[in-house]
């Protein structure tokens, strides 16, 4: 290859590759509106930052977070959803085939716009803020609802999202259902006779082990389920990495984890082989419980179910 050709080959090849990639971008396919009872529009809601947002059209919805996507589907507006973020995993069969807009924290404006949404809805976790601003500039209605971290979160999200998307009645009805389920589960806690110490471990492969504390998303559930959050007891905020020795020192009776995390360390047997785990009461008695990511941490419409499951997981005496 001559020097001139060599020097020009790279940019040229690059340009060709660029053009090829660019032309292969799939065009967004139009979606048929939902067959459910029609939403009442326009809907007026107060945004997280206090501004009033008017939602006029919910025919193409992009939820920015996994829990919000689940809430939208629960509200029966799933057929109007044209794209979700990668943390949306439920209902798996419905969200699986939808276009992905990236992770809720690292969204891209033009990517979302290419799905031609009429309304974009999420929590303050969605961002970066510039992208939300760019979406507003492009004329898309952006609704940001507050982030709730307690057990009422599931019901409150249903109400807020329901109101924003023009189905306030359905939102209210489903919210009461969730509250009923949570209340029912809470009553079960009365039948328990133990108060196990629970360590919520966030695992991603054998190298990443963090323990959850206050505001981990699981702390509210653990306490409501009659457990004692070990991480919170250690004064941990959110998630912190954990040494094997402090895990042993904390002596948890039960280890709580996410199913994907347990899989990443090779299942329950793999988890038991992690340093320190076998030396805890939880490890000795193989008391390891794990649930799906969005079920345990999402604090969405399935909060009542998550609580019931966790009560059974923490208290063998309740059967």
């Amino acid at each position, binding site marked *: 290859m*001559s*020097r001139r050709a060599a020097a020009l080959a790279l940019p040229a090849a*690059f340009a060709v590759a660029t053009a090829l990639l660019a032309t292969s971008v799939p065009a967004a396919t139009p979606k048929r509106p939902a067959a459910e009872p029609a939403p009442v529009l326009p809907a007026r809601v107060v945004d997280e930052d206090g501004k009033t947002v008017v939602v006029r059209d919910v025919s193409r919805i992009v939820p920015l977070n996994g829990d919000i996507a689940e809430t939208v589907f629960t509200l029966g507006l799933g057929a109007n959803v044209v794209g979700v973020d990668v943390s949306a995993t439920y209902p798996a069969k419905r969200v699986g085939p939808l276009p992905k807009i990236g992770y809720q*924290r690292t969204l*891209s404006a*033009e*990517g979302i716009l290419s799905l031609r949404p009429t309304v974009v809805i999420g929590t303050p*976790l969605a961002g970066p803020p510039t992208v939300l601003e760019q979406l507003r500039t*492009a*004329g898309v209605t952006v609704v940001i609802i507050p982030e709730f971290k307690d057990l009422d979160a599931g019901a409150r999200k249903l109400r807020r999202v329901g109101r924003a998307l023009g189905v306030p009645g359905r939102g209210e009805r489903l919210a009461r259902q969730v509250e009923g389920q949570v209340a029912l589960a809470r009553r079960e806690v009365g039948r328990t006779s133990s108060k196990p110490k629970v360590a919520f471990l966030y695992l991603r492969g054998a190298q990443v082990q963090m323990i959850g504390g206050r505001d981990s998303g699981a702390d509210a559930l653990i306490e409501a389920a009659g457990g004692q959050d070990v991480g919170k007891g250690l004064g941990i905020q959110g998630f912190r990495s954990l040494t094997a020795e402090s895990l042993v020192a904390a002596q948890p009776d039960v280890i709580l984890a996410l199913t994907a995390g347990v899989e990443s360390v090779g299942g329950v047997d793999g988890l038991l082989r992690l340093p320190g785990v076998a030396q805890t009461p939880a490890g000795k008695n193989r008391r390891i419980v794990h649930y799906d990511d969005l079920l345990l941490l999402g604090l969405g419409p399935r909060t009542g179910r998550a609580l019931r499951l966790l009560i059974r997981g923490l208290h063998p005496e309740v059967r």
Partner: protein
Amino acid sequence: MASTLRFASGARSGTGRLLRPVPLLAGLLALLAGAVLLGVGIGAVRIPPGDVLAILLRHAGVDLGVDVDPQQDAILWAIRLPRVVLGALVGAALAVCGAALQGVFRNPLADPGIIGVSTGASLGAVVAIVLGLSGAFFGALQLCAFACGVLAALVVYGLARHDGRTEVVTLLLTGVAVTALVGAAVGFLIARADDEELRDVVFWSLGSLGGATWPLVAATAPFVAVGVAAALRHTRELDLMALGEREAAHLGVDTERVRLRLVIALSLATGAAVAAAGVLAFVGLVVPHLVRLAVGPANRIVVPASCIGGAALLVLADLVARTSVAPTELPLGVVTSLVGGPFFLWLLWRTREAHGGWA
């Protein structure tokens, strides 16, 4: 210093004919123009070329009377165009800094990270993310990254200076030491970060032009201009310094002053680029070498050609980043490294063919 001198003259010892400077610069300008056209014309949202033209002209004050969708107007004017412009600025800054620093250090491996700017800026960004400053006001993260990046470079220079003089190898090694130290601070903060903060840090450190807005472009441009202007102004001195420190001094070059000016101006430019787009590996390293391969080592050509070439390359790389997996994006740093890595290997392999490697 034998190896570094070889780097300066290596490209000339090949067998092929070098490009003339004027055709090269003209070709690169055409490439940049093409890149900008492609960058503005293509995106996740399809906007017909005619509408693109109508929208651009309308913002320039010429109304073609074509009805354009206001949403497409917003996408083009508020999202895509600032992004392309920022990409060109960042690419130009990184490539010029790489070219000039390779000259200052007489080292082929010098890149904008070598005087600590990149890691310094990373520290600033991570501090802003972990301490929650990034939410305090718009641009807080960028400001923090820029300040820490420039500060790190000044610390490196200050520590390396002795009796009013700096010595190239000392400066280089001080850069390595400060980079390690700052890297440790970044690591410490990362260990303290929670899940979301960690995601933000990782996203930032992989580089992206997704945050491009007109105010960010306006804030970045002056610093890039300072860096590019300083590098262009001192190309003659850089050429003489390639002969060796003492030789250049004999020829009347105040090497200390040139070095200080360049280090400051280039830190400002790199700091602004990294603050705006995150850490983009390989652009600053690879583009100048590509240019040297085509036209030889004369800095008066290499610096301007790197400037234009770097701008074009980054605009194209960003085009790939934002369209290849639409509606999601690839991190820009991944794209630049994906192109830069194999290219660098090829460069090494070629040079070995020609005269047995760099050393």
